[in-house]
C-alpha cells in the first residue's frame, strides 16, 4: 500500500505525461485526476470557484470603490451598465459608463436615478484609486479596473447607505468562502478522529461514539446553531466571532463524516497491512492516521467537498438572521439582511446579488463533489 506522500510525488513528476501510454503506470491520484477531468461540469465549476476565490482573496484589488465608504448622493442607486456604444451610435473600443443623474419623483418623493448620457467616463485597467492594505501588509492604491476622472461606477448598485454593493460583495466573499473550508477542516479533524477510533476500536467506544453522532444528528441543526450562535458573547471581536461560528458549524458537521470514516475503517481494520502494523507495535492513533485514513482519502475528499456548501449555507442563514457574522465585518449573509423585507426588495432588487453568489458557489461545490465522487474510484 502506497502512502499519500509518494503518490503525490508521482503526480508532481509527470503531470503532463502521455495519458494513453501512461495509464498502466499512473498512480491512483493521477488516474483520479484523469477521470475528474472528463467530468465537464466539475471542471467548469472548478474554474468558476477558483475565480471566485481569487476575487475574494484579492478583493481590495478588484474592488471599484471603498467598501465602507458612504456615497450619500447615491443611496440605493441601481447597477450601472458598461457601454461600448453611446447614444449617438459612436463605437468606442474602450468601455465607458454614464454619469448618474438623480431626480426626485414628484409623487412618491423617492429618488430616481437615471443615466446621464451627456457625461461619459471611460473605464481603465489598473487605475489609481483608494488606498488599501493587501493582506494587511502592503500599502497599495492600484486596482484592477476603475472609472476615470470624477465618475462613479457601481456595478451592482448601492445599498441603503450608498455603499458600493460590488466591492462589498467581493469583501464579503472572503468570510463566506473561507468559513466553509475552515469549518469543514475542523469537522474533518473531529470526525475522522472519532470515526476512526469508533471503527478501529469497536465495542463500547464504538457504541458510545455512534450514539453521540446519532444524538447530534437528531437535533434540528438550524435551531441548535441559532442557540449556539446567540451564546457567543457580544463583546467578541469580529475575528473571534468568525472562529466561534466556524466552531459551532463544525460541532454539528463532524457527525456525518465520522460515520463515513467509521464504515470504511471497519472494512480496513481486518486487512493484512493493518494487522502487520499492529503486530509491529505501531500505536493505535498512528495506525489510524498513517495507514487507515490515507487508504480511503479519496472518499474523505468527496465527503469534505460535499460538506463545504452546507457550511456556507448555514453561515449565510445565521448571518441573515443577525446572529452570525456581525457588521462591520461582512459576509454574503450580512449583505442579504437588507434584502429581508420584500418592500425594500421590490424597489431595489439588486440587493439580492450576494444571494446569486451564494447559489453559484454552492452549485459549484456540489458539481465538484459529484465529479470527485465519480473519480474517487478510478478503477471502476
Amino acid at each position: 500500500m502506497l502512502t499519500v506522500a509518494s503518490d503525490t510525488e508521482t503526480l508532481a513528476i509527470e503531470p503532463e505525461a502521455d495519458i494513453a501510454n501512461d495509464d498502466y503506470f499512473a498512480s491512483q491520484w493521477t488516474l483520479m485526476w484523469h477521470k475528474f477531468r472528463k467530468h465537464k461540469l466539475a471542471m467548469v465549476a472548478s474554474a468558476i470557484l477558483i475565480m471566485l476565490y481569487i476575487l475574494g482573496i484579492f478583493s481590495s484589488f478588484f474592488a471599484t470603490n471603498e467598501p465602507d465608504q458612504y456615497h450619500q448622493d447615491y443611496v440605493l442607486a441601481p447597477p450601472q451598465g458598461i457601454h461600448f456604444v453611446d447614444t449617438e451610435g459612436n463605437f468606442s473600443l474602450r468601455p465607458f459608463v454614464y454619469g448618474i443623474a438623480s431626480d426626485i419623483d414628484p409623487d412618491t418623493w423617492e429618488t430616481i436615478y437615471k443615466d446621464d448620457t451627456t457625461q461619459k467616463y471611460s473605464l481603465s485597467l489598473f487605475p489609481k484609486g483608494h488606498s488599501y492594505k493587501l493582506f494587511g501588509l502592503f500599502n497599495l492604491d492600484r486596482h484592477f479596473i476603475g472609472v476615470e476622472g470624477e465618475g462613479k461606477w457601481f456595478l451592482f448598485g448601492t445599498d441603503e447607505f450608498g455603499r458600493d454593493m460590488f466591492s462589498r460583495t467581493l469583501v464579503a466573499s472572503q468570510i463566506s468562502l473561507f468559513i466553509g473550508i475552515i469549518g469543514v477542516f475542523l469537522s474533518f479533524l473531529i470526525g475522522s478522529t472519532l470515526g476512526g477510533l469508533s471503527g478501529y476500536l469497536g465495542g463500547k467506544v464504538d457504541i458510545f461514539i455512534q450514539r453521540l453522532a446519532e444524538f447530534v444528528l437528531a437535533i434540528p441543526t438550524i435551531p441548535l446553531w441559532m442557540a449556539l450562535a446567540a451564546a457567543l458573547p457580544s463583546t467578541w471581536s469580529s475575528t473571534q466571532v468568525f472562529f466561534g461560528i466556524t466552531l459551532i458549524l463544525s460541532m454539528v458537521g463532524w457527525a456525518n463524516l465520522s460515520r463515513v470514516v467509521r464504515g470504511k475503517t471497519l472494512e480496513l481494520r481486518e486487512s493484512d497491512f493493518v494487522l502487520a502494523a499492529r503486530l509491529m507495535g505501531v500505536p493505535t492513533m498512528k495506525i489510524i492516521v498513517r495507514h487507515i485514513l490515507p487508504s480511503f482519502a479519496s472518499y474523505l475528499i468527496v465527503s469534505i467537498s460535499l460538506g463545504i456548501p452546507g457550511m456556507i449555507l448555514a453561515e449565510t442563514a445565521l448571518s441573515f438572521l443577525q446572529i452570525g457574522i456581525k457588521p462591520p465585518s461582512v459576509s454574503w449573509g450580512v449583505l442579504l439582511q437588507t434584502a429581508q423585507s420584500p418592500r425594500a426588495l421590490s424597489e431595489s432588487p439588486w440587493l439580492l446579488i450576494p444571494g446569486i453568489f451564494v447559489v453559484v458557489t454552492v452549485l459549484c461545490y456540489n458539481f465538484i463533489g459529484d465529479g470527485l465522487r465519480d473519480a474517487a474510484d478510478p478503477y471502476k
Partner: protein
Amino acid sequence: MARYIGYRIFYALVLLVLVSMVSFLVIELPPGDYLSTVIAKLEQTGTALSDEQIAAMTQQYGLDLPIHMKYLKWISGFFVGNFGYSFEWGRPVASLIAEPMVLTLFIAIIIVFFTYLISIPIGIYSATHQYSIGDNVVTVFGFLGLATPNFLVAVVILFFGLRWFNVDLSGLFSSEYLAAPWSFGRFIDMMMHLPVQVLVVSTALSASLIRVMRASLLDELQKQYVVTARAKGVDETALLFKYPVRLALNPIISEFAMILPATISAATITAVVLGFPTAGPMLLRSLISQDIYLSASILMMMTFLVVIGSSLADFLLVTVDPRIRLDKSADRG
C-alpha cells in the same frame, strides 16, 4: 419484535433526557442573563435599581442558583406542565409556547407529507426515464434546490407576489383573524397562507429525496427478478409498482430520520422571513433577549418532536421490512 420496540423506546427516552440537558446547557452558556439586560435597560432610562431590589429579583427568578439546580428546578416542573417563566413576556412558558408549537408541528406534518407526495412520483419518473429531458430537468432543479438558501427563495416569492400580483404573502393570518379566537374561518384563513412555506421547504427537501428515490429504484430495476418478470411478459406498469417501487421505498422511509430535523430547521428560518407566529421566530427572539426558560423549552420541544418522529418512523420501517429489524439487532450487537 417486542424486545426491539422496548429497546427503541428506552433509547428514545435516554435521548430525550440528554436533549433536555443539552438544550438547557446551550441556553445557559452565554455570559449575563435576562436580569442584567433588564437592569441595563432601566439604567438607560434613568431608573437605577438598588442592590436589594436586584437581589430580590435574582431570587425571584431563581437566577442565583447553580446551573444544575436551575436545570433540576426547570425539568422537574415538566411533569406537571410547568416549563418555567418567560421574563420577556411575563407569562408562564407553557401557555406561551402551546399554540406556536402546535402550529409548528401541524405545518411540519404538512411539509413532510407534501415532500413525500412530490418526491416519490418524480423519483419514479426520473428512474424509469433515466437521462430523458424530464430526468435532466429534475436533476438541474434538484441541484438548484440544494444550492439555494430556503430563506432566499421565500424572500424572492414574497417579492414577486408584491411586484406582480400586489399581494402581501407574508404572515400566517389575515389581519381580521390575527387576534381572533380559533374558528373554522380562522383555520381556513391559515391554510390559505401556508402554501408559500410548504412550497419553499418541501421543494428544497424533495431535492435530496428525489435523488435517493431515483438511485434506489435504478438499483432495483437492474436486478435479475425484474428481467425475469419482464421476460415472462408481466405488464410493465404492474411489474414496476408491484416489486421494484415497493422495495425502493425503503431507503426513502429511513430518510425520514433526516427529513424531519431538516423540516424543522428549514421551517424555522423561512418562518422568520414570512413572519409566522410559529416556534422558530419565537426561539430566535427569546435567544436574542436571553429569555432562557422560553428558549430552552422551545429548543427542547423541537428536538422532542424530531426524536419521537424518527422513533415512529423506525417502527414503521420495521413493520414494513422485517429485514431491517434483523440487521439492526445484529448491528447493535
